[in-house]
């Protein structure tokens, strides 16, 4: 077990190192990205550009710059942004993380619960109208882009019907820290949660349904039925349990990617200044330190989430325990 964990850790370091070097090289290969000219400002004199280049160490060999950046990020922790100069990268990321985590974790609970319910219900009523209705809805959920759904939700709750009894309770867009007021935290996140979860409910529901139906063909299901187990027991205890494995694996990927910043569209539409928006802004203005930090942060979460999922799978599926 220890060896497995150590090898995973080593792999994580290699992945992160590779990603950081790639990001760094791509940045410097981008034409028009010269950080010195950007920092110096519009119409700066050549002397000023040269002085900025020297001051920020941008005149040094690229590997020295890479080393300096890594040292500032991981050892001294005083890496600062190229754009919002004086803004420390690590604390900024740390401050944005709870926003994204609140959004994604809440949505994840919703989509796992509702997705599983959808999949199981649809599989149980296969071919009949609840199945058809649920699958139709899921297809719609998957097909609608999240930023569009978000804008529509805002249009209704913040603009068109904002002054009616139905939506007058909806707070202005933005994040309220949990420590400030748990109630207002939850209220502000209700629609972002629903919006982000919507797509995944559809996706996971469809996946689980197909999985269960496939599992029904297996011999051990026939055996279970032959033993005289109830239909419900067969569905929940035997079929779902094995059909949910791919869903859990996918959940790990999705959760890691979303916490790492892929929830950017939902964040921007609902005015939640999380990691995704931070990354997007950094990319827009080519803020190298922030890009590096958020890319590493994201890759860390993806690797971590995958490791956790592997453990979960072992718990769920006894077959994985013997090797």
């Amino acid at each position, binding site marked *: 077990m220890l060896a497995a964990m150590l090898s995973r850790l080593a792999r994580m370091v290699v992945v992160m190192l590779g990603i950081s070097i790639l990001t760094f090289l791509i940045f410097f290969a981008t*034409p028009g990205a010269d950080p010195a000219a*950007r920092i110096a*400002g519009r119409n700066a*004199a050549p002397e000023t550009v040269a*002085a900025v280049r020297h001051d920020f160490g941008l005149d040094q060999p690229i590997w020295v710059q890479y080393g300096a950046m890594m040292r500032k990020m991981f050892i001294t922790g005083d890496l600062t942004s190229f754009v*919002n100069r004086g803004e420390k990268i690590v604390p900024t990321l740390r401050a944005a993380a709870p926003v994204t985590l609140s959004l994604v974790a809440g949505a994840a609970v919703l989509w796992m619960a509702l997705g599983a319910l959808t999949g199981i219900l649809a599989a149980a009523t296969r071919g009949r109208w609840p199945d058809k209705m649920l699958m139709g809805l899921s297809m719609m959920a998957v097909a609608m882009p999240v930023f569009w759904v978000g804008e529509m939700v*805002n249009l209704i709750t*913040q603009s068109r019907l904002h002054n009616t009894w139905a939506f007058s309770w909806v707070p202005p867009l933005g994040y309220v820290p949990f420590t400030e007021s748990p109630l207002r935290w939850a209220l502000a996140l209700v629609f972002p949660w629903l919006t982000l979860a919507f797509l995944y409910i559809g996706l996971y529901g469809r996946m689980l349904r197909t999985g269960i139906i496939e599992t029904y063909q297996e011999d051990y299901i026939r055996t279970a039925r032959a033993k005289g187990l109830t239909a419900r027991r067969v569905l929940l205890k035997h079929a779902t349990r094995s059909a949910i494995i791919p869903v859990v694996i996918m959940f790990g990927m999705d959760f890691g990617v979303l916490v790492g910043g892929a929830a950017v569209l939902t964040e921007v539409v609902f005015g939640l200044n999380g990691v995704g928006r*931070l990354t997007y802004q950094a990319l827009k203005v080519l803020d190298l330190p922030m890009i590096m930090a958020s890319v590493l942060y994201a890759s860390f979460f993806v690797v971590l989430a995958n490791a956790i999922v592997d453990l979960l799978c072992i718990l769920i599926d006894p077959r994985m325990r013997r090797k």
Partner: protein
Amino acid sequence: MIPKLSPERVARRAATALALAALAGFGPTLAQAEGDHRGGTLRLVSVSSQGTLDPHINYTSQFWQLYAFLYDGLVGFKKVGGADSKEVVPDLAEAMPVISNDGKTYTFTLRKGIKFSDGSDMTATDVLASFQRIFKVLGPTAGTFYNGIVGADTCLAEPAGCTLDGGVIIDEAAGTVTINLTAADPEFLFKLSAPHASILPSETTPKDNGNEPIPGTGAYMVKSYDANNSMVIVRNPAFKEWSKDAQPDGYVDEIDYTFGGTEEAAVNAIMNGQADWMFDTPPADRLAELSTTAPDQIHLSPLAAWWYAPMNVNLAPFDDVRVRQALNYAIDRDALVSLFGGPALAQPVCQVLPPEFPGHEDQCIYTQDPGTSWSAPDMEKAQALVDESGTKGAKITVVTEDNAASRGIGTYLQSVLSDLGYDAAVQTISGDIQFTYIQNTNNKVQLSISQWYADYPAASNFLNVLFGCDSFHPGSDASINISGMCDQEIDARMKAAIALGATDQAAADKDWAKIDAAVMEKSPALPLFTPQQVDLLSTRVGNYQFSSLHHWLIANAWVQ
């Protein structure tokens, strides 16, 4: 100055154009009669913040608008709406400076009793330290605005040890500051009015102060700033109004600026009374709706700016003046205006200096009947010039930004170029990258779309900056003369006009009008249109005033 252009800010809607055209006649409206309006909190929103809070470094219109009531220079632009806003008035100095020594020496006497927001006194020492700091922090305009001060050359070469010996001389006891220039500079007072010449406490660190607010002398001060979330601005407790023109006492007690969300959400927040103003331009489709449902809340104001398409005079086929002129004849400027949102949001132009700008005289050579204004494209003439040049079939790429307006214009130019017989393509790049990309000659950009906003009301700020030899730096990402035009004769005339301005500004402005025509004759760029500023306010905001330099004067508005 860098305008903040968010993607998709401007879309095309004929409906917007029509509805807003009806609005254009409306001036600022007063929500209520003048009375006791002091107090309350103003809530501003913006999609994003704009970098460091340091007034010696930040070079964005978004934060310059705030510096208007946070910091002061020795002199400053008058804080009133309308045409008077271009006037320079004494600010921390008691009166306008005494100018002697053939315009090379400026002597200021400081006002007494002015305090910084940390309670310390503002003295001549602070003034000297602030001028040194411009160079020590490698300010963006150090080498372009303030390089004329005696000793500036050593400061630019050796920023850390900057003293400005002989350049800025102070007499602490008498409270006087003398600034010596190497040559007369009629624009020097404008440059001193820019936030980059703000007077800060002498103990301010000689490094970019980043997101830590620096005490200032203005009516307000920044209480907290988180670039990723919000800024809170409160009254400066040490402030006593010394000149209503230079630094008026504000009406509201607090200004809360929130960053994040989308333009769409900002419009909703304003209409729901959750916010009072948005920095970004409302999306065009919402503007159409708002212009009928809430016309009193929209304010349109002319900007000292232009959208233009620089043509690289050093690259084929634009190294042939006939090709450049042909394109100027061929473009339909009315079509460009409607691409930007219609006649209420932009006016067609066919010269460099914007309307009502010093040195501007209505003139247009690239139109059907050359004269004072543009009427229609002249395709025949254009075609004839192209045929004459023998460049037909050449490959031309238009480099645009990724917002709807820039992309639309790029596609339009592509169609015009195809009509003229060229093999044209459009290349779209993220706005923030495009601006530096098109400047660097190594990227071999033939034709691009860009904007320029005036820093101060002087013709040279357009002509000399955008088409002067001094701002062309081959191989650098910082080379604002994007066309790469360096015409020795015109350059000499521009230098002469700047010099003439020291003694006779009116005569100089006449020269600038001629230079404007001469530059257009060489056709280094396609003037597209002059944009308008759109401000959307909540119903409770009163006393809207628009200054061409600071834009909406936030401190002059009230909320109760």
